[in-house]
């Protein structure tokens, strides 16, 4: 488990590539599999912060692919060595997190 976070600073902009581990099951998928739509589970909120500042704030649905890869960019008073900390929470309330240093 854990979110993999790669962050690179270039020309004042930090580019992040993140990889989360999650099955991201949809309502229809689980209806077929277990007969219960409510078994669906997927990441509902994904965030990233650096030094306590939010740099990504995304609400998500079941239609993000399995083991989601999300790439995003941000700028500000950040430097190499600062840590990008990412967190997700899913529909069932499970949580995971991961960190990556800005290179």
């Amino acid at each position, binding site marked *: 488990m854990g979110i993999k976070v790669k962050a690179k600073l270039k020309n004042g902009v930090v580019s992040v590539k993140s990889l989360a581990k999650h099955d991201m099951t*949809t*309502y*229809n998928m689980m209806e077929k599999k277990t007969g219960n739509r409510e078994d669906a589970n997927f990441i509902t909120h994904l965030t990233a912060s650096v030094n306590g500042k939010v740099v990504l704030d995304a609400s998500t649905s079941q*239609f*993000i692919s399995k083991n*989601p890869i999300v790439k995003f960019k941000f700028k500000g008073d950040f430097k190499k060595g600062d840590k990008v900390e990412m967190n997700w929470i899913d529909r069932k309330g499970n949580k995971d997190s991961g960190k990556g240093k800005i290179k």
Partner: protein
Amino acid sequence: MERRNFLSLVGMSAVALTVAPAAVSATDWRADKPDVWHAHTVEDAIQAMYGSTTLIEEGVKLTAPDVAANGGAIPVDFATTVDAKTIAVFQDANPEAAVMVIDINEFSVPQYSIKIKMGKSGTITIVAEGKDGKLYAAKKTLEVALGGCEG
């Protein structure tokens, strides 16, 4: 102080600490606007999210394949040059339309790459909510060879 009281105090402060940062900064659009996530059409989802469906098709860039071999992981790149508050992803190939809503703040460089699921061929719509109150959008229709997610 009794041990029991002390422990409960520690427990309470731990809860306060973990709750506080999320409450200060992040917006949970699923909690704030639940109708967006249940809407079956893109129009209904955009209406629920933004209170309007009038889209100006400029200022937003959307890149996705013309034909997706695997509907389970379709690469979608999107960006906006609009001074925007939020940017959102919708599609019309699945039972519900909403895929993602991202808050844009002073740190954001609004360029994103994600992978999405589409059960069949359809159209992806990206909407950027401008600070001017207008909705800017880009659309792309693509063919899905093998449906990815059974909805």
